[in-house]
């Protein structure tokens, strides 16, 4: 095993050390998946709340999330930078130029997208579904769960879009992550750096890897969707 690692450490691809390259890919995935996990855990219940509960200013909150879908990453980066910098509100946490700051940036960018798209999927569910659930004796909570289950493909599409936004993000991530080699350097920031250096071959190679990861995620989610439509499929209905 040690000789394998030593061998890998010595090998290079387009002038970049293979271990370093794998580290960049691994960190990219770790940061984006962490951000997506936070977004999903907080965003989906919020989307369900917005879709299923009536409260004052609900329309305004939904409009706000719709507007924030188009948040410019550099603006998010700038605000986060100011908040996380030594004199900022959260400066005491020493998060600037850490992977945690990058997770935070991606979370903020993907959050409105996932909430808005999931909310749209939930309100699109035919109201007859809720009535049908009521006629069969569903409690309010069971009705809500049924509507969420009916909207599952739309919600999944929202989560996929969120993951897409997170993995493709560069502006905010470079501002709060700093693109430090071996610590906060991810695929997108490496592509930006290598392009600046004129190393187009590596930038292109990383771009292709990024696309391949997106394709794999899409294929996996499509498979999940397909399974959801058959009995042998996933447990969405159990």
């Amino acid at each position, binding site marked *: 095993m040690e000789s394998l690692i030593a061998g890998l450490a010595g090998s290079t691809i387009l002038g970049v050390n293979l271990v370093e390259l794998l580290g960049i890919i691994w960190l990219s995935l770790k940061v984006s998946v962490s951000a997506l996990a936070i977004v999903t855990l907080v965003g989906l219940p919020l989307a369900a709340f917005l879709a299923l509960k009536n409260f004052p200013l609900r329309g305004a909150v939904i409009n706000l999330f719709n507007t924030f879908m188009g948040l410019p990453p550099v603006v998010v980066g700038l605000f986060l930078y100011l908040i996380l910098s030594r004199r900022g509100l959260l400066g005491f946490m020493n998060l600037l130029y850490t992977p945690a700051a990058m997770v935070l940036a991606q979370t903020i960018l993907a959050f409105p997208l996932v909430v808005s798209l999931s909310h749209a999927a939930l309100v699109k569910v035919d109201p007859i579904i809720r009535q049908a659930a009521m006629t*069969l004796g569903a409690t309010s909570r069971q009705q809500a769960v049924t509507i969420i289950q009916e909207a599952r493909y739309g919600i999944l599409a929202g989560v996929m879009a969120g993951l897409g936004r997170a993995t493709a993000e560069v502006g905010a991530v470079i501002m709060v992550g700093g693109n430090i080699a071996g610590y906060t350097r991810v695929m997108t920031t490496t592509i930006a750096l290598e392009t600046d250096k004129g190393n187009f071959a590596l930038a292109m190679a990383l771009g292709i890897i990024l696309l391949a990861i997106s394709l794999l995620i899409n294929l996996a989610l499509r498979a999940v969707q397909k399974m959801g439509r058959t009995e042998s499929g996933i447990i969405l209905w159990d």
Partner: protein
Amino acid sequence: MGLTIEASHIFKAYNGHEVLKDCSFVFDRGGAYALLGPNGSGKSTLFRILSLLERPDRGQVRYLENGRFISADLNLRRRITLVLPRLGVFNTTVFRNAAYGLKLRGLAKGEIEARVNEVLDMVGLTKKRWQPALGLSSGETQRLGLARALAINPEVIFLDEPTASIDPVNIEIIEEIILTVKSRREATIIMITHDPGQAQRLGDHLLVMKNGKIMARGV
């Protein structure tokens, strides 16, 4: 076992338009009632109120058991059901649609399977139980609606036009199912139909509604 429904002086209006005007009557337990009337006469609104989906603006709907009133809570809601004219099929298999009400009640898997298999057999959908419910024909969808309702063993079953827009073969099958349920006398059946012949075939009591009022009744 068995519920009697007592509706007294029911009024209901939507946007100032009065849909139900002083409807009063009693549905005895175990009976089969057919409600006839033109479109817009208030039949479906009455069903939604009787099945506790909506409240009347004025008047009362009360359920009685052995002469005692029962409160309109979840327990009561789970003893009655309404089969809607546009069913609201869940985007899953036929089996899981039929099992829905039983899962809500937290029944054991084996019990659910046995009950669902029984009702799917009754409505002739056993062979299609693992197919997507949204792929069923309109006649099969109505049969699934009946299966979904019957699976929960309701004591009162409201059927809002169970044979509307379906072919004669499926109408015959659905009428057979309703007659089977009726013969067991385990549930009160109250149905809306536009077909007087069907009302006579399936109902023991006939009610005619017009302009939000019950205009005539007979046996």
